């Protein structure tokens, strides 16, 4: 019985789930709630629940990472667009100011992408809104822009929305499981 060995009266007894030190009189682990003196079935179902939680945690992280990556793609696309614009329209006096604006956007997406692992909700909401506003402004400039690259735009917006939902779930999950 592997689990019962961990709850002996020894002072260095550890929880079988989170390996935190536990006291002899503890019925439940004070760190993860593992039923130290529960039946084997209770202990097994606790471990199973923890594993499901770990899978959820990994899933949220992956969704957030995907959404964060889409911010990096946008940063790359805007940088590329700035370079192309610069070399294609060098003679136009307005090109420099346009390139600077595009580079500011690229820098913003890059910053949001980089920070998205720390503050996912802030970065993904800001990134989504920024992207939508850029698309609105491009559409005002030329309505054809709405349909150009529409599939790519839908994918980016889809990733960002999924990322925001995952970030909300992740925040809730962290609160429920005391994760800082």
């Amino acid at each position, binding site marked *: 019985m592997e689990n019962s060995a961990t709850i002996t009266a020894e002072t260095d007894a550890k929880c079988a789930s989170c390996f935190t030190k*536990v*006291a002899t*009189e*503890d*019925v*439940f*682990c*004070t*760190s*993860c*709630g593992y*039923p130290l003196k529960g039946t084997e079935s209770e202990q097994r179902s606790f471990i199973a629940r923890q594993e499901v939680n770990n899978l959820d945690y990994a899933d949220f992280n992956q969704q957030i990472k995907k959404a964060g990556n889409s911010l990096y793609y946008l940063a790359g696309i805007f940088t590329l667009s700035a370079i192309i614009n610069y070399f294609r329209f060098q003679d136009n*006096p307005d090109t*420099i*100011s346009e390139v*600077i*604006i595009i580079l*500011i*956007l690229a820098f*913003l997406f890059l910053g949001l992408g980089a920070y998205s692992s720390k*503050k996912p*909700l*802030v970065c993904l*909401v*800001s990134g989504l*809104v*920024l992207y939508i*506003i850029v698309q*609105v*402004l491009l559409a*005002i400039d030329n309505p054809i822009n709405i349909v150009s690259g529409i599939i790519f735009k839908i994918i980016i917006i889809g990733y960002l929305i999924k990322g*925001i*939902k995952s970030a*909300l*779930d992740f*925040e*809730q999950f962290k*609160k*429920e499981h*005391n994760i800082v």
Partner: protein
Amino acid sequence: MLSEETVIEPVPLLGKKACISCTVLIDSDCKFCNSCGARQTQVQGANTAEKWQLLQQGGVFFGLTLIVCCLAKFVDALQNLTSLIIIDAFLAIGTVAFFATGWQENKRLLHWPNFSIQKLSLYCGIAMAGAFLVHYSVTWLNITIFSKEESYIWGFIGYPYAKVLLIFFTAVTPAIFEELGFRGYLLQILLKVADEQQAVYISAFLFAIIHLSFLSLFWLIPFALFIGYMRVKEHTLWYGIFFHFCFNLTACLFELL
């Protein structure tokens, strides 16, 4: 030699707390009760579905404001005083309507607890100094990058009471209704969705970006962050409204004086 009489020692309470479920005394850093297994942190506030719904509500407010701002900025036919009055009135009514949807909760933001004239003066002073810095840096950037100058007064030239109109539409109405909308309605929603820091960041970014000037983000984001923190710290919109008013008024005075 110690007497053998029984000494009742007090139960040490330092570093202990009662379990929220079975009230047994446990260490204060325990996440779970060692006796009943109950989790010691209660997750308060909205769940994920409710938070998503709140975000959508905020999105509707932001989307409508964005549409009106785009119309005001890019439609040539709307570049006159009558249109400006209609657009401002529409924005004001819309903002008040959104703010009123959570009236029971939001009305507290219209109170002014712990009013302090010193604090108000300090905030107004910071706003004026900030406007001074922003005015010169933005003018320099506009001339250097875009080779052009911009002025708020140009839109009012030719109308009677142009200076009064400039101050009313640039300093008074934005200060009241932008604060009511962004630091009142939107930030209040975001505070239910995320923690204080994230809520202030998001509202600041949204406020900055609705101005549709990417170059101005360098000052709009810190400006909105400052007012956001002020609103959260002071639990009132009034300091923010006065700060915003003083900032915009100073910008107007640069053009009038």
